[in-house]
């Protein structure tokens, strides 16, 4: 055939062949994506500090282990929160959706934990969360942000900023920045209110009167989910000391199940009612008669 004898013709035909799919699936979508059609009014650009944090996230390659997109699948939404919408990402240059979940998805991380949790976690993740294989990022606390460089970045991206925001960067560390960034993630839309699990019907403790030996088997639930903030022995830390006597079973259940977002207590509804009841019993009754060892 003629193209087998004419390299220039082959090059032209090959270019045409690859451009068809390219134009339809890559060029055309620009007509619909990031337009009025998928915009969300409450989504705001990054502040100077958040942008610096985002750049640290990119520099350290966090996207190699963490995704930032929640799929409209039951397990994804239960585990991470409301599924991601196109309009939430209009200020993301580059996008950071990732491709592997060696660690959990972070698209809805903002507001889940208090800042203090993040400072301790980034310092030594494997020490803070038992069984984690995340590297330590303690060195970020020793590096400060350069406000003038940040100003250049904000200008390049056309993001609005105030002088106060730039001067306020002085003395901020990269740790402050990445935590500010993580606290913004996914919180531009009021999804938490929309998906808060409702407790239906009357609450009945299915483990009322459980003996101490049974509760011992539930200790791992406490250690994995609660100890980081409330201490190994209920002594408190980031969160308050846990005094089993001070709350009713049902109140304790509601606090754990739905969280107290304004106080930094995340909801644990995704654990399921059964595990939450086990934790309620463990917290309320396990240490009674013990000497807080």
């Amino acid at each position, binding site marked *: 055939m003629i193209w087998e004898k004419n390299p220039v013709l082959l090059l032209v035909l090959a270019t045409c062949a690859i451009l068809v799919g390219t134009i339809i699936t890559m060029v055309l979508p620009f007509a619909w994506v990031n337009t009025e059609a998928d915009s969300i009014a409450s989504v705001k650009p990054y502040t100077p500090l958040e942008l610096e944090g985002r750049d640290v996230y*990119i520099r350290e*390659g966090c996207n190699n282990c963490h995704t930032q997109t929640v799929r409209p699948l039951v397990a994804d939404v239960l585990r991470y929160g409301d599924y991601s919408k196109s309009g939430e990402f209009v200020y993301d240059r580059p996008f950071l959706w990732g491709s592997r979940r060696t660690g959990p998805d972070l698209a809805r991380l903002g507001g889940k934990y208090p800042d203090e949790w993040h400072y301790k976690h980034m310092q030594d993740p494997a020490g803070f969360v038992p069984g984690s294989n995340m590297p330590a990022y303690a060195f970020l606390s020793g590096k400060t942000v350069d406000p003038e460089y940040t100003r250049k970045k904000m200008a390049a991206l056309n993001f609005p900023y105030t002088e106060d925001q730039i001067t306020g960067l002085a003395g901020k560390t990269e740790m402050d920045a990445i935590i500010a960034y993580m606290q913004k993630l996914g919180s531009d839309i009021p999804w938490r209110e929309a998906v808060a699990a409702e407790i239906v019907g009357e609450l009945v403790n299915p483990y009322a009167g459980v003996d101490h030996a049974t509760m011992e088997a539930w200790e791992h639930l406490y250690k994995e989910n609660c100890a980081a903030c409330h201490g190994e022995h209920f002594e408190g830390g980031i969160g308050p000391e846990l005094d089993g006597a001070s709350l009713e079973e049902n109140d304790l259940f509601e606090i754990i199940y739905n969280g107290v977002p304004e106080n930094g207590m995340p909801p644990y509804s995704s654990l*399921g009612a059964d595990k939450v009841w086990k934790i309620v019993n463990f917290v309320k009754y396990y240490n009674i008669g013990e000497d807080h060892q």
Partner: protein
Amino acid sequence: MEKAEYNYDIVRSFVNWSILWGLVAVLVGVLIAFQLVNPDLNFAPFLTYGRLRPLHTNAGIFGWGIGTFFALFYYMVQRLCRRPLWSDGLAKFQLWFFNATIIAAAVTLLLGYNSSKEYHELEWPVDIMVVILWVIFSVNITMTIVKRKEEPMYISLWYMLATLVGVAVLYLVNAAAVPVSLFKSYSAFAGTNDANVQWWFGHNAVAMVLTTPPLAVFYYFLPKSTGVPIYSHRLSIIAFWSLIFMYLWTGAHHLLWTPVPDWIQTLAMAFSVMLIAPSWGSVFNGYLSMKGQWHQMRDNYLVKFLILGITFYGLQTLQGPSQAVRSFSAFIHYSEWVPGHVHMGAMGWVSLVLFAAIYYLVPKIYDRKLYSIGLANLHFWLVLIGQLINSLSMWVAGLQQASMWHSLNPDGSLTYTFMETLAEIYPYWFVRALSGIIYLAGVVVFIYNLYMTVRRGKEVPVAAAQTT
């Protein structure tokens, strides 16, 4: 045709350097595999998983993969066009510039200068180096073909030309960015658009770097190794054109269930499944070319590498489309299954074919007999076993991980916390790291065999060395 006319110097140099970068890729791969098992092996800030993983993929794809393709394309283009390279000087500069680019890439990635885009992490100054490199290479190959002395262009040359234009288009579009400083830029595209452009690039880098070049190599070196021509020319034509046409529609199968518009996802899924046909067109063409020659699987170590290579290509192009189906993607995506898939392609298909080509090449360009066929066989079994353990451990890990992620209690709540799922993966990660050591041992045997061939291999008379 007198051998003296051909420029084999450049082929030798690219082979040597690409093998070095390949060794780096495997070594870094083993290190990061152990980092997942034990986080204490991260040495912040330069040697953390997040910075090393792009180094691993870049050294593998661009150092070992592209570097070897440079060598093999320069070898094939001269033989197939029956003429020396269009420009020896340009090729020499390209060699020097290639190594400078790879070193610049390695250093900047460790320093944390990266764009975050998978398989396109290099920041804009290094991006420009890559573009220059590709233009030099493309001009030299194209001009050699234009001024060829053999009128019909063999199948391998079609794949080479498609590679040149394909990589150029993909790389330039995805590289578009606004620089802020020498070390930092922001993507020209935002959010969902950026994701769609990136995976249009990402999946077609698989097409234009990890499919069309090794197919060019396979179509040339299989007949050379067996002494029997390719089974069907017509099938080659159909497979070639349909492959390069269909691939470009499929990028969004990396983005199933994300905010990318549904119709793009559906097209990607449909074309991914259709891609089985052209992929298997080449697989069948390879298998049928072995008609009456299957005894060579025992007698000829080169054939063993090539046929196992095309077999893994066949498996890869069945597994890939299955992952591109929405329902299966919902289950398996983001899990360890995917690295298992990728490593079958990288360690099985691409590397096995490249090993065969280099084994074929080195005796020819050094006028030596291969030092040891026994060691070549040992190399074959080590890399085959290493790769199979790697992929299998990750597939099983992925299935378990995905099952646990999606598992629900009767009351509709999640059965497992994320940390409970993570804890189950450690044994698999450990096995995977060990598989990397086995593969590494195979690569070391390979390098030793080549080194001894050049050093101590029996000299072969020039005439005999170039007859095949």
